[in-house]
C-alpha cells in the first residue's frame, strides 16, 4: 500500500510541483562532470568552464520531449539526426580551447546552439555556422531570445570558415569531417587552437586538438575522451 501511495505521489509530482529546480539540477550536473574530470587526464577542468556549465540553461536547448533528461550527463537527440553533446564532452572541448575573455571563436556546426552559448559566456565573440536550415533558424532564435548578443549565426558552408571575421583565436568543428578543411587552418591565428570531436552520434570517440604554433607549424593531438590506459592492463 505504501508503495502504491509512493507511486501515486511520484506520478502526481510533476503536475503539483510545476517546473523542477533547474538550477539545482545544473549544480548536480556540474558536480558529476567535475567528479568525472579526473578521467580526462592530469588537468581537471578549469573552474570557469565548470561555472559556465552551471549557468547555461541546457533545458532550453533540447526538444520538449527531452527536457526531463536535460541535466543528465548524456548526449540527447535534437532531431535532424543531430545531437546535443554530452555535458562532459562539452566541458572537455571548451577546456581544450583555453578560452579568454577577448577571444573570437568560430564554430562549425551550431546544432542546438548549446556549445555556442557556453563559449559565449567565456569569450568575446562567437561566430557559428550550421548546414541544416531548421537547426540554424531555431538555434539563432534561441540564442537571441536568451540574450547571447555576442553570438552570430549563419546558415551555410563552414568549409571555408568565415573570412570577414578571421583570423580566429580558436575554432571548434562539431560537424562530421573526413579531413580538417585547409581554409580553417588558414583562418586560425598563430598560437590558436582547433578542436574537432570525432566519432558516431551519441558516441564521441576522441577529440582532435590542432595547435598552430607561432611559426605557423601545425601539430595535432588525439585526445581520448576518456583516459583509458593501460591498454594492456591486467586481466
Amino acid at each position, binding site marked *: 500500500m505504501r508503495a502504491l501511495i509512493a507511486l501515486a505521489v511520484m506520478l502526481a509530482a510533476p503536475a503539483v510541483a510545476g517546473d523542477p529546480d533547474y538550477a539545482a539540477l545544473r549544480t548536480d550536473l556540474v558536480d*558529476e562532470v567535475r567528479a*568525472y574530470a579526473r*578521467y*580526462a587526464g592530469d588537468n581537471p577542468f578549469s573552474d570557469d568552464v565548470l561555472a559556465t556549465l552551471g549557468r547555461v540553461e541546457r533545458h532550453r536547448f533540447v526538444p520538449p520531449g527531452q527536457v526531463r533528461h536535460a541535466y543528465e*550527463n*548524456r*548526449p540527447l*537527440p535534437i*532531431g*535532424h*539526426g*543531430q545531437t546535443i553533446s*554530452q555535458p*562532459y*564532452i562539452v566541458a*572537455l572541448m571548451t577546456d581544450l580551447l583555453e578560452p579568454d575573455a577577448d577571444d573570437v571563436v568560430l564554430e562549425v556546426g551550431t546544432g542546438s546552439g548549446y556549445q555556442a552559448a557556453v563559449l559565449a559566456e567565456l569569450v568575446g565573440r562567437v561566430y557559428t555556422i550550421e*548546414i*541544416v*536550415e531548421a537547426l*540554424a533558424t531555431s538555434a539563432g532564435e534561441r540564442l537571441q531570445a536568451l540574450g547571447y548578443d555576442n553570438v552570430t549565426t549563419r*546558415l*551555410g*558552408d*563552414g*568549409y571555408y570558415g568565415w573570412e570577414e571575421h578571421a583570423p580566429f583565436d580558436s575554432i571548434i568543428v562539431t560537424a*562530421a569531417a*573526413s*579531413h*580538417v*578543411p*585547409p*581554409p580553417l*587552418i588558414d583562418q586560425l591565428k598563430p598560437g590558436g587552437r582547433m578542436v574537432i570531436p*570525432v*566519432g*558516431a*552520434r*551519441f*558516441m*564521441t*570517440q*576522441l577529440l*582532435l586538438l*590542432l595547435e598552430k604554433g607561432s611559426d605557423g607549424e*601545425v*601539430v*595535432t*593531438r*588525439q*585526445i*581520448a*575522451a*576518456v*583516459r*583509458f*590506459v593501460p*591498454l*594492456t592492463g*591486467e*586481466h
Partner: protein
Amino acid sequence: MRRLLIATLLVSAAAIGYEILLMRVLSVVQWHHFAYMIISLALLGYGASGTFIALLRSRLEPRFEAAFAGSALLFSISMVICFILAQRVPFNALEIVWDYGQLLNLAVLYFAFFVPFFFAACCIGLAFTCRGSESSRIYFFDLFGAGLGAVLVIALLFAIKPQTALVLLAVLPLSGSILVASTLAVRLPLGIVQFAWLMLLAVGVPQAHLGLRISEYKGLAQALEVVDSRILKETSSPLGLITVVDSPTVPVRHAPGLSFGTRHVPPPQLAVFTDADSMSAITRFDGRPESVAFLGDMTAAVPFALLDQPAVLVLGAGTGADVLMALFHGASRVDAVELNPQLSGLVADTYGDFAGRIYDDPRVTVITGEARGFVARHVGAYDVIQIGLLDSFGASGAGVQALNESYIYTVEALIDYLDDLAPGGFLAITRWIKLPPRDSIKLIATAIEALRESGVSEPGRRIAMIRSWNTSTLLVKRGDITSVEIGRIKAFSRSRSFDTAWLPGMRADDANRYNRLPQPFIHEAAVALLGDKAGDFRDRYKFHVEPATDDRPYFSHFFRWRTLPEVMALRKAGGAGLIEWGYLVLVATLLQAATLGLALILVPLALAKQAWPAGAGRRFGFYFLLLGLAFLFVEMAFIQKFTLFLGNPLYSVAVVLSGFLLFAGLGSAASERFARQLPWPAVSPVTVAVAAIAVLALLYVALLPILFDRFIGLAAAARIVLSLALIAPLAFFMGMPFPLGLIRLMRVAPGFVPWAWGINGFASVVSAVLATLLAIEFGFNAVIVTATALYAVAAWDEAASRAG
C-alpha cells in the same frame, strides 16, 4: 487438394521471400546485423504456430479450409501492416547505451516482425496436421515454394524497389487464401476482406506509408538534412541500395586522411551511399591533374612514392577514388574490381562526364566480381594492390560493422594478395584510426600472421605503416623494404605531416611527431606483435586484436567482455565511444529470442498440461532440444562460410537456406524408408544418419577452404550449383533425425508430440543467434564441430533409451 498444394507453395514462397526482403530492408533502414534477428524471428513464428495448432487442433481441424484461408489472408495483411508499423518504432540502436528504453523498442520491433511469420507458419502447420495423409506432397510443395520464393525475391530486388516487392509478395498468400477459400461454401466476411485487401494492394498502398524510414543517424539521412542537398539517383538491387546525392550549397568534400598541410582542396564531388551509409564520392575530374592534386596528399598515396608507373589492382573500386588516385600518379595499368556493377556504372556511364571518363581510359579495366575470387585467378601480376576505405567512419567507429563478415581482411586474403604481387610490389590497405587503436593494430597483426604463414621469417622487414590523424595505411611488400624505400616513405610522410607508425629499423621517438597520440600506441603494438610475446600482447590488449581468418572473418569485431564493465563505468566520462554496441545488440537479440521463445512456444504448452509416460519428457525433450540447436548451428555456419564463396551475404542466405530446406526435406521424406531398408537391425537409424552427418560435416571443415579456393573464380551460376551440390548430402541426412525421433515418439508417448515440436522450435530460435555469437568467439569450424557433438550426444541418448 491441388488448390491446397498450390496455396501451400504460394505461402511458403512468400514467407522465405519476406524473410530475405526484411534482411535487405533492415540493412538499409538500420544495419546489417539485424539479419540474424530475422532468421530467428521466422523460426519463432514456426515454433509458436506449432504450439498454437497443437493446443487448438480439435477446434481447427473441422474448420481446416477456413483456418488456412484465414491464416494466409492474415499473413498477407500482416506482411504489409507490420512492415509499416515496425518502421514507426522509434528504435535507435546508437542510443542503446544511454537509454535502456531502446531495448523495449527493439522488443517491439522483434514482435512486430514475428506476427507475419506466425501466420505463414500456421498455414503450413495446419496443412501438415489436418491433411497428414498427403504430408509428403505438402512437404514437396512447401519446399519447392521456399526455393522459388528465394529466387523470386532476389530477381524482384534486381528489378524493383523493396517496398514494391513487398506488395507483390503479399499477393502470393492472398492468392493462396482465395484459392483455398473457393472450396468453401460461401463465406461472405472472409471474401469481403480478401476482396478489399486485393483492391488495396492493386490500387497501391500509399508510398508515404511504405517508404523506407532510414535511421536519421545514417549517413544518407544526415546528408539529406544539409541545406539544398538532393537525391540525383537511386537504384536498388540485392547488392544494395545506391543513392547519389548532390549538395550544391555545402559541397561534399570526401578526402579521408587528407594532410592538414595540403594546399589542395578537393574539387566538387557527388556523395554515393550504399544502403544509406558507407559514403564514398565521385570526384569531378576535368582532365587537369592539378584539379585533383589533393589525391597526392592522402596516406593511401604512399605506394606511389615508391614505384614509377606501377601496374595497379584496386580491390573494392567503388566510385573510383582509388582508380583516379592511381591514374593521377601515372599508373601504367589499373585493374579495378568492384562487386556491385551499379557503382561502377555510375562512374562509367551515368556520371561519366563528371568523373572525367576515367573508366574509358585505355589503362583502366573495370571488372565486376568479388575481390577474393579475382585475386585467386591472378598471380604475380601487380606492382600495387590498393584496398581503400570500404566503410564510413561513423559506422566503423561505433562498432556497427562488428558482425559483418569481411573476407577482405583475413589472413588467408592477405596471403592471396601477396601472391598476386610482382616481386618488389606493395599491398596497401587503408583504414580509419580509432582511439584507443584497434583496426590498425589488428591489421598489423594480420599482416604479420600472413607473412609468417607464407614462410617469411622476419615480417617486420616487409611492413610499413603511416598514419594521419584519422587514417592509417599499411604497406606490405613482396620482398624486404629497402633503405631507399624507407627514405622515400619518411620523406613522403614528413612533407605531409604524417607519422610513421612502423618502418623497419625506425626509432620509437619518430612515431609520434605530427599527429600525437597519448602514447605511440601503434608503434608499441607493432614492436610487441613482432616480438616473442606477440600472443601475450594480443591476450592482454583490451580490445580483440587477434587476426581475422576465413574461419572467423570478423575483422571489425573488437569487443571483449572483460573490457565491458570498465567502458560501461566510463560511459559518462566520455567513454561511450568505446562500447562496441553491434555485438551487444546481438546479445540483446539472443535474450529476446530466448524470452519470446519461452513465452510463445513453451509456456502455452506447459499450461495445456498434456500427459505422457514418466521419463519420456526428459528423454525426448533433450533429444529434440539438441537437434534444434545442432541443425541451426550447421545452417548458420554454412550461411556465413558460403558468403565467401558466393560473394554476398544475401546470396548466401538465399542459396543456403533454400538448399537446406529442400534437401533436409527430401531427407525427411526418405527417412522412414531409410530406416526400413537399413541392413543392420541392431543399429538405430538415427545413429547411422548422425554418423553420416558427422563424417560429412567434419569432411567439410577440412575440405571447404580448399574447394572454395579452387572454385571461387567460377561464374556465379556455377558457384550456386556447386554450393547446392555440397549442401545436398549433409542436409539430406540432417533432415532425418527429427522425423525418426517423431515416429518413435508417436508410438511411445504421443502426448509429448507437441512438446517435441515446441522444444525443437525453441532451440532453433535461440540457436540461430547463438551460432553467430559462437562463430565470432570461436570460429565457424568450432560451431560445426559443436553441432556434430550435439548430434552425437542426441544419437547416443536415443540409442541408450532404445536399449533401455
